[in-house]
């Protein structure tokens, strides 16, 4: 059976039994694939990721999104080594809670970006193998995107692609959003619908040519609604392979915080049950 691992370094097929000493090294990292993309508009931000988790030539999961909600105004997309993605998001969540309790306010997008930079640089000599992109609304309500490298260098952008297909997506975004390499084109400001459409189209192209990207696309949108309250909307899971757009309708605040509020309800319910049970006994 031929597999990718059976090709040795010099291009020759590796023998089944090695002659001589072979050094095996344990690597603490592995690459789990995935692509993340964030776009900032005038009063909205969109963060999208594919949902495939892979390792080598295999697929671990077809339903592992890489966007994580941090606050009502900020979403982070993490791709690279999945173990470090999970740990890093847990650390960020804990730090957000600590800030909220000691400063009595939520962290702004810019503050989260600066904090993440210091967290990443703190591990300069054993880095988190994660490519981060933060998307959200800044304190003035304008869209903001912050892109990072694995050791914490960051800058604010209008749009950024990260992860395995980033080299394929970034030039297309440069052209369509930044209007680069085009003359005589009217610089129309990006609307939310056009941005979502562009993100879907761009991921179709990435999935065609990058083996690590595919299965489904998750898009999260952060924008200010008519009541001047910033909210996070789960726009859609777009399954490119099966042509089923599973779109979640934008309702009120209940929709955006659906996971969190459900959890609270269940807890309260179970406490009541417990109370009733003890009473009866």
């Amino acid at each position, binding site marked *: 059976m031929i597999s990718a691992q059976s090709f040795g370094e010099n291009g020759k097929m590796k023998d089944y039994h090695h002659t001589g000493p072979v050094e095996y090294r344990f690597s603490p990292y592995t690459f789990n694939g995935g692509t993340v993309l964030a776009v900032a508009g005038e009063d909205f931000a969109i963060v999208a990721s594919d949902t495939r988790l892979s390792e080598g030539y295999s697929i671990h999961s077809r339903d592992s999104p890489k966007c994580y909600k941090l606050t009502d105004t900020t979403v982070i997309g993490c791709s690279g080594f999945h173990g470090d993605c999970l740990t890093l998001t847990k650390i960020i969540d804990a730090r957000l809670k600590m800030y909220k309790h000691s400063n009595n306010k939520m962290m702004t997008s810019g503050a989260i970006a600066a904090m993440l930079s210091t967290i990443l640089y703190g591990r300069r000599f054993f880095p988190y193998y994660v490519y981060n992109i933060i998307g959200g609304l800044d304190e003035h309500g304008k869209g903001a995107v912050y892109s990072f490298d694995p050791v914490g260098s960051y800058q604010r952008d209008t749009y950024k692609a990260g992860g395995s297909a980033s080299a394929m997506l970034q030039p297309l975004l440069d052209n369509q959003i930044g209007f680069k390499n085009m003359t005589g084109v009217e610089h129309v400001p990006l609307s939310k619908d056009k941005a979502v459409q562009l993100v879907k*189209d761009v991921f179709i192209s990435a999935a065609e*040519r990058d083996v690590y990207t595919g299965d489904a696309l998750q898009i999260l949108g952060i924008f200010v609604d008519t009541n001047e309250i910033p909210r996070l909307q789960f726009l859609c899971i777009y399954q490119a392979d099966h042509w089923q757009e599973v779109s979640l309708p934008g309702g009120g605040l209940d929709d955006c915080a659906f996971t969190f509020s459900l959890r609270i309800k269940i807890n309260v319910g179970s406490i009541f049950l417990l109370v009733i049970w003890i009473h009866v006994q």
Partner: protein
Amino acid sequence: MATLSVSRAPLGGFSFENCKRNAVLEADSAKLGSSVPAARKTGTTICGIVFKDGIVLGADTRATEGMIVADKNCSKIHYISPNIYCCGAGTAADTEMTTQIISSNLELHGLSTGRLPRVATANRMLKQMLFRYQGYIGAALVLGGVDCMGPHLYSIYPHGSTDKLPYVTMGSGSLAAMAVFEDRYKPDMELEEAKRLVRDAIAGGIFNDLGSGSNIDLCVITKGNVDYIRPHDEANKKGVRVNELETLCQTGDYKYKKGTTGVLTKVITPLNLDTVGEHVQTMDTS
């Protein structure tokens, strides 16, 4: 009298004279900062089975360069002779050239014997060539055909070993395809059942292996007839952009107007030519 240097007759055994040259070339290119161009591997799923009337060969159609898809619809089932076809996995150039060399040698051999070539002959030629190159030719093949002695199926490894079996799989998706075979293979299947089994085995490789993808090609070889079905199943169609299904104004339009690329200078030189003929070949923009 001029001294003529006559080259010595080649000694028997292996000749490694180019290895030193290759090592020097690699070191030189490393000094310049560039690297030796990596051969494109197919990262494939190929398989074959023997059924009641003959052989069914199957292959996916994705060719990868590293982890980027280089060709979304390449042909991995190669012609060897009118009654013998060969699927190839591994380095794309190696499978292509090896099968072409053996195909042309077999044709000459067939003219010399006056008979249709046997699968065992093709197998012997392929294994002797691959062994001579000690695994440096990265071609893993599934060879199948029907000759005067019946249907035969071989798997051939890059170092030159071969196995004669009723069902075989090769490539990075071989484990996924073999899982399907081990579940549902039985001897003396009917044609439709055999085609369905091979299609499902390749589909297992396409959906569970990152190195395989796109469509499924099939080749059915029976006594006196070859059915080369390409594509048998378009398992993966390219994503359709929403604006093609419903009319959405000003979204998803990626056509550039004339003048988007700025023209700096323009020089027109008229060529006085006569049109002899005209032939239109549409570009494959899939």
